[in-house]
């Protein structure tokens, strides 16, 4: 087991309070950065660490920071993306609820590096109680001199605010988030310009995920180089994995990137195996948007090598036989899970959450939901399966933001790997009218009849 660096103190009683957090070495990164480092040195450490955006895109965070327009005479902003809404993902909520000061500390150190004088944490509105926890943490930090004017007696000042969302998955997309923070509908912006040049209030802005900003704390404390030694290859550091679905121990786990998927699923330290003594059928490894993989391909790559929990290994084989690490939302399905029905819930989600700006996404997600509803409820046609593939193809790559791709990939991959289940639904409409059909008739037997 690797050393936990974000969740090291997750079980310390009172760790949500400033005093206990401070007694465990909290806010050391702020002291180190403000008193002994220049902002550029902090940015360099983050670059050296190789930490990649933990919200899902996996873009190197230090690189993103270096794009920030530092010559502009406009104010610069750091905005934390705490709009966690990708189905299967709940790690940021856990971090903020358990160790709120880790995020506050990361925000201060990162804001200093970026030269931001005002920073915002945009939290999805449903997490209202988490917002209260963060606001209290900020007040405690302010009382201790870590937020506000002349932090620790230096000439660096920072105001830090929490902004609530109001229920919109799309606001996890960074430009939609900025629109929302400006008090508008969460419609993603056309890029360029990127937020680094014209973000919040048309000013240079960096938007980072909660976990990414938290990772800045150990990076500054122990050096970017030390952080880059953890993990494997270009997947440096640790990653929080939100594990859900048909496993014995759902929850948030901090792993060293590079951990074998098999160990993650079956070890008692993590998921503890498949529940009810059943067999593994499929996994959606990085939040609902990434391609689903059947058991054989999630445990081993097409080349027969053990699949690892890393950006590279999970995407090995491209979309034909691989997937993505994404947000680390690891959704496990046992042998009784109906792939079609699960996919229908995902597609319903994307249809509900499409902002409506781009017609391929607005219309396409609706069509996919309807066609899947029809198949799942025993009214499908064989042609529907290829129709779904066709609609998914027409959405992918044809929208302003990645929500279109996120809606298309689950559909394409489910049909790619589980086409026989879709055909079974069409051929045996009477059997699928019970939503638990595979539980009633074991999967293997059901599919044997289908053939």
């Amino acid at each position, binding site marked *: 087991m690797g050393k936990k660096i974000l969740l090291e103190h997750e079980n310390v009683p009172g760790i949500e309070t400033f005093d206990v957090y401070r007694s465990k070495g909290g806010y050391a990164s702020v002291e180190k950065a403000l008193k002994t480092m220049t902002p550029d040195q902090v940015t360099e450490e983050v670059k050296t660490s190789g930490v990649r955006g933990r919200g899902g895109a996996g873009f190197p965070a230090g690189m993103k920071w270096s794009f920030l327009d530092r010559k502009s005479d406009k104010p610069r902003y750091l905005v934390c993306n705490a709009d966690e809404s990708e189905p*299967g993902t709940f790690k940021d*909520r856990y971090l903020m609820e358990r160790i709120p000061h880790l995020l506050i500390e990361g925000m201060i150190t990162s804001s200093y590096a970026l030269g931001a004088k005002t920073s915002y944490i945009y939290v999805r*509105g449903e997490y209202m109680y988490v917002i209260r*926890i963060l606001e209290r943490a900020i007040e405690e930090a302010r009382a201790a001199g870590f937020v506000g004017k002349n932090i620790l007696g230096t000439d660096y000042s920072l105001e830090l605010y929490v902004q609530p969302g109001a*229920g919109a998955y799309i606001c996890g997309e960074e430009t939609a988030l900025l629109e929302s923070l400006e008090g508008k*509908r969460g419609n993603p912006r056309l890029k360029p310009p990127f937020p680094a040049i014209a973000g919040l*209030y048309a000013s240079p802005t960096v938007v980072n995920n909660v976990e990414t900003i938290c990772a800045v704390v150990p990076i500054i404390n122990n050096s970017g180089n030390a952080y880059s030694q953890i993990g494997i290859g270009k997947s440096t550091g640790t990653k929080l994995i*939100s594990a*859900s679905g048909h496993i014995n121990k759902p929850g948030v786990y901090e792993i060293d990137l590079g951990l074998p998927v098999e160990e993650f699923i079956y070890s008692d330290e993590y998921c503890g195996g498949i529940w009810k003594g059943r067999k593994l059928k499929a996994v959606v490894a990085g939040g609902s948007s990434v391609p689903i993989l059947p058991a054989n391909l999630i445990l081993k790559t097409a080349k027969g090598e053990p699949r690892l929990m890393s950006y590279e290994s999970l995407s090995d084989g491209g979309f034909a036989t691989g997937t993505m690490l994404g947000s680390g939302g690891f959704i496990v399905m046992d042998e009784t899970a109906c792939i079609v029905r699960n996919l229908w819930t995902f597609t319903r*989600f994307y249809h509900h959450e499409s902002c409506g700006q781009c017609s391929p996404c607005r219309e396409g997600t609706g069509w996919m939901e309807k066609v899947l509803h029809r198949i799942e409820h025993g009214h499908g046609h064989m042609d529907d399966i290829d129709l779904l593939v066709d609609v998914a193809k027409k959405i992918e790559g044809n929208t302003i933001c990645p929500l279109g791709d996120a809606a298309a990939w689950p559909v394409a991959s489910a049909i790619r790997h589980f086409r026989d289940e879709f055909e079974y639904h069409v051929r045996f409409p009477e059997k699928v009218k019970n939503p638990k059909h595979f539980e009633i008739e074991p999967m293997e037997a059901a599919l044997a009849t289908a053939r």
Partner: protein
Amino acid sequence: MSSDKPTFSTETLALVNRIIARYPEGRQKSALLPVLHLAQSEFGGWLSPATMDYVASLLSIKPIEVYEVATFYSMYNTEPVGNCLIEVCQTGPCWLRGSDDIVEHLEKKLGIKNGETTADGMFTLKTVECLGSCGTAPMLQCGAEYYENLTPEKAEELVDKLRASGQRSSYMKSARV
């Protein structure tokens, strides 16, 4: 408070001003989402046209700027809801752990269908999309509270508890903090 002439208390108005002060001058529109949350909580759990117009006047923006936002975000109710808005997550990870059963039992217990309000105006039942509680699924949200690791029995007990408390659910009030 009468719903046709909504007015915040002096205390809430002070809070609104503190919220506006979080943003640069001239950017008071940024306060729209937090102020709409306050308004919904104070004026009966939903945003009537009068409430939205009032918020527009507070922030010196056009009413249409409020309407378009209020209708975009799923947490804002643009029609009246019951005293307790029960929102059951139905997305994949919750479905895998039995959210269908929860909805079915709640429908039976409350005698209404998903999307409806009980005749006494006490409960509205609604299915919603992923609330970030997949590791503790199935779950429902009522006001600011998350009720996790649900079973049909636990969900039914919760209904009894909420009915007994008689309080209006609000996203703004959490017992946890």
